[in-house]
């Protein structure tokens, strides 16, 4: 699995959790978003950004 896909997968998981927490709004889901969704999205974005910036990744066929 390429770094792009790993990053995208993490982002998608994070966004799903965030969607659930926004739709089912409770104090508990705020915690869910802060502790689960935000780290997943940020980690996914960081992995993707690193892959996009990497020359090696960019020159792959």
């Amino acid at each position, binding site marked *: 699995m390429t770094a792009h896909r790993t990053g995208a997968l993490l*982002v998608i998981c994070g966004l799903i959790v965030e969607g659930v927490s926004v739709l089912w*709004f409770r*104090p508990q889901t705020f*915690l869910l978003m802060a502790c689960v969704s935000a780290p997943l*999205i940020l980690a996914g974005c960081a992995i993707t950004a690193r892959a996009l910036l990497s020359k090696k990744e960019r020159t792959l066929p």
Partner: protein
Amino acid sequence: MNTPLLSLILIGLAIVTVWAIQGQVEGLKGRGVGMAMMWLGLVGLPILALARGFDLHLEGSKRTDFCTSCHEMKAYGRSMHIDDKELLPAVHFQNRLVDRQTACFTCHRDYAMFGDLTTKLAGVQHLWVHYFGEIPEEMKLYKPYANENCLSCHRGARSFGESRHHRKRGVDLASVTTGTVSCLDSKCHDLGHGLDDLEDADLWGLPQGDTP
């Protein structure tokens, strides 16, 4: 920006992103437009969505029903329905002196540049105590109630300065405004939410089906 418009923009960006990623598969990767769309879709858009989610949560957490959704706070929510003109929370709530939808937050927030943020960080502390700490028998504020919470609305109001009670009791309002005398600890407004009398109190305006 309103939510439907933002949602439309996000959906549009998502479609463009999918197109860009498909393009990548067919050799678009490395080209300017494809890379820009990937940056936008896989980095920019998720961060935007995360920020919007936090914003929605922050706004929603100002609501009274959010505060009283935990069982520890239910008595405080009910205390705002006590039929007693001496209780400030009840008077403010029942007479719409504060927005009922955000009654807790209006009186218990920090009024400063980062007041919302510090208030919500304290709220996260509540959550921590709820799940991992020991819930005290008697609730207490983390810090003394600031006069600024009252004065942000009452400062300069004629009803505040010329109040019969404020004048009759010889209260030094200058000390109140500078914070040297507390509104709550000065034997004037020290009843708080009146939880001691909640069991026997007459309640006003409770939602249908919510019995005392």
